[in-house]
């Protein structure tokens, strides 16, 4: 658990972070969003003491971070940053093993851990272990960056725009991957991004920041249904809000299963674990107001009509 209590960071007379309070529960994926210069990176770096806070308290697992030696603190917190910061003179395996080496694990244990992490991140050990960072694509390098952050199995993970420099497709892939990892590992994650779509996709809780303060915090659907002010609304994309909200709701939560099974010839089908946004797009595409909902094996399991989509299900 990470707690920030009335934290302020001053650079000279300027307050980069101003009276900031936030509690991130164990296993929670918390995303700080805001425009550049809003203090979100500064907040993140105060947690592992790359920047020292001026006032207030920061606690990890109920202990003041100032009570730790900064190096020891950082070794128990995973850290991943934009453009990876991989050590260019070290192989992939050696990069991933950085923190375990600093913690003086013995060699076989480090090797086994590196192997395990590469498998977890979908990097073929034989193919990639001895490559140098310059021989990796952006997406591969970022996977190595995430593996390195996870190496010593920290409970807490800080991620500073880790996917910021990637092309949209690789970016979406890695977001999916991170969600998959998080559902297994249940780390406490603080993630910084300026991309609200990324935040909506990943977060359990979104914290919107502006000028060093919290403007609004809540679950993605909290934010979408009740943005606190015009700034949050503009971050949420204004008129696209409806679509973004639909992107958070699964078809399975709105479909009807009490109707007779539809004829199998209907070409307009949607998967039960797709979102309402996809369903709406399919309706527009097929020019119809009812879709057949299918499961993973393509067997019809229900129906979704435009009415169901618009009104939260009464059935």
């Amino acid at each position, binding site marked *: 658990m990470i707690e920030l209590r009335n934290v302020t960071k001053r650079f000279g007379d300027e307050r980069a972070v101003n009276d900031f309070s936030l509690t991130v529960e164990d296993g929670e994926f918390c995303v700080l969003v805001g425009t550049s210069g809003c203090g979100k990176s500064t907040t993140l770096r105060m947690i592992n003491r790359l920047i020292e806070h001026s006032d207030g308290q920061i606690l990890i697992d109920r202990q003041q971070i100032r009570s730790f030696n900064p190096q020891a*603190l950082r070794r128990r917190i995973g850290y991943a*940053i934009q453009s*990876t910061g991989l050590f260019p003179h070290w192989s992939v395996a050696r990069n991933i093993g950085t923190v375990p080496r600093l913690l003086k694990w013995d060699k076989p244990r480090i090797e086994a851990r590196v192997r395990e992490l590469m498998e977890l991140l979908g990097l073929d050990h034989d193919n990639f272990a001895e490559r140098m960072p310059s021989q990796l694509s952006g997406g591969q390098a970022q996977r190595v960056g995430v593996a390195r952050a996870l190496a010593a199995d920290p409970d807490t993970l800080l991620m500073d725009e880790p996917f910021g420099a990637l092309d949209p497709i690789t970016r979406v892939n890695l977001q999916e991957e991170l969600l998959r990892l998080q559902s297994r590992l249940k780390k406490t994650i603080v993630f910084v991004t300026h991309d609200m779509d990324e935040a909506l996709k990943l977060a359990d809780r979104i914290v919107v920041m502006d000028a060093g303060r919290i403007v609004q915090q809540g679950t993605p659907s909290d934010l979408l249904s009740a943005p606190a002010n015009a700034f949050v609304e503009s971050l949420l994309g204004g008129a696209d809000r409806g679509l973004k909200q639909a992107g958070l709701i699964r078809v399975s939560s709105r479909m009807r299963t009490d109707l007779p099974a539809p004829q199998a010839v209907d070409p307009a089908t949607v998967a039960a674990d797709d979102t309402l946004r996809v369903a709406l797009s399919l309706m527009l595409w097929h020019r119809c107001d009812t879709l057949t909902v299918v499961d993973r094996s393509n067997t019809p399991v229900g129906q979704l009509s435009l009415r169901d989509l618009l009104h939260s299900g009464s059935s």
Partner: protein
Amino acid sequence: MRLQVSRVSNSARHAAVPLGWLLVLGLAIAWLPEAEAWFRQVAPNSRSVIYQRDGFLDLVLQHLRLVGAASLVAVVVGVGASILVTRPLGQDFLPLVAQLASMGQTFPPVAVLALSVPMLGFGTQPTLLALVLYGLLPIVRNTLVGLQGIDPTVLEAARGMGMSNRQVLWQVELPLAARVILAGIRTSVTINIATAAIGSTIGAKTLGDPIIAGISNGNNAYILQGAILIALLALFIDSLFERLSRLFQ
């Protein structure tokens, strides 16, 4: 297995260049005293055409010792000062050190010799001082460029992973700057192999001895002998550095 064999022969090929120059240098040292007939042609009017006050081998070794000692001091001082001024604590001194080092370069070595003789007397010591000052700039300049050229995100990652300042320096900064620093040391040493000859004007024993003696007696053969050995020595040392710098690619 095949890969290993080719790697061995590869490294043997690279080592061949410095070894070749060393062989040429050795042959020159052995051959010069025997080449009276050849040198007679460049200095037909001189009584003696082979420099004999000291053995050539002795001069080469003295020359190397002087350059080696000066370079060692210049490397320790230059790299050390550059590291210090790139730490947060020493940052205020960065412009000063950069400036001092370039002043060392603009000051002609002859002037350093002339100025330091009254303080240090004749012989090796003032020469050493001049060589150290003269050799500092390339080392300081390259070390600064090498350390400051490291991607800041790499350093941030290193600290964020929990490396101590010392670990960041030894495991990340110095290895990443090594090639550039080595290039600076190479320039410094090569320049000083040539510059050291001037030490002979104030009584240091170097390969400049035959050259100075040749100039004052109008004996071109002596000058040629000193020049040949200095050139070969510079080529040999430079090829050693060339080989060394490959290790960092």
